[in-house]
């Protein structure tokens, strides 16, 4: 997992498969990075994500709730079509905004 902090925007690249088999590992790493603080908003960068399942969606929703309690907005950045379709069907865009560049 790659992450960078640019002017208050924490950008976390979720490369590879975001599935049930890897969810535990993703969760641990994400929570560690998010607990460091020092950011105003978070971008989950899906541009290098190859697969997502309902467990991956649950993982995003869990981090969303955490960030919401801290009053920090979360954005979904550049999902490829296959990932976008799963996110759409899951209804995630009704609570988390999708963007194509870091704002």
């Amino acid at each position, binding site marked *: 997992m790659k992450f960078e902090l640019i002017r208050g925007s924490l950008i976390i690249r979720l490369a590879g498969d975001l*599935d049930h088999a890897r969810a535990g590992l993703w969760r641990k790493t994400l929570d560690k990075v998010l607990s460091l603080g020092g950011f105003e908003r978070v971008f989950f960068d899906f541009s290098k994500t190859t*697969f997502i*399942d*309902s*467990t991956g969606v649950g993982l995003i*929703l869990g981090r969303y709730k955490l960030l919401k309690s801290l009053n920090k907005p979360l954005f979904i950045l550049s999902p490829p*079509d296959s990932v976008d*379709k799963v996110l759409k*069907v*899951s209804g995630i865009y009704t609570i988390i905004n999708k963007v194509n560049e870091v704002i």
Partner: protein
Amino acid sequence: MDQITLIVKAIPENESFVRSTIAAYAVRKNPDIQIINDIKTAVSEAVTNSIVHAYNDDKEKEIHINARLSDDSLIISVIDFGIGIADIEKMTSGLFTSKPELEHSGLGFTIMRAFMDELEIASDENVGTTITMTKRLI
């Protein structure tokens, strides 16, 4: 009808193995990449449910996956011999989960229904569950 059967242990590492193998099988009919992606996602949801719910992460258990190719469709059955689905109507129509504490949100069946053309659920408590899904390939 041409068909393949996979028998795998209920371990998470097999989720990607099964979805990739079924996708490779369907490629024989040359479907669009979107169709392949839909199949991968739906198969993965069914296999994950068998691991997480049917078998409660007991890695010694087995999941059977059967895939058949007709002229224009792929028909897949994911079969487990686990706890079964007590109330199919309530538990599979979306947003129901028996494991909210593990950040499951009851999206699996919603995704399977949206991504496949047909979905059939056969289940008996303490006998097991068979999910059969059909996807048109052309």
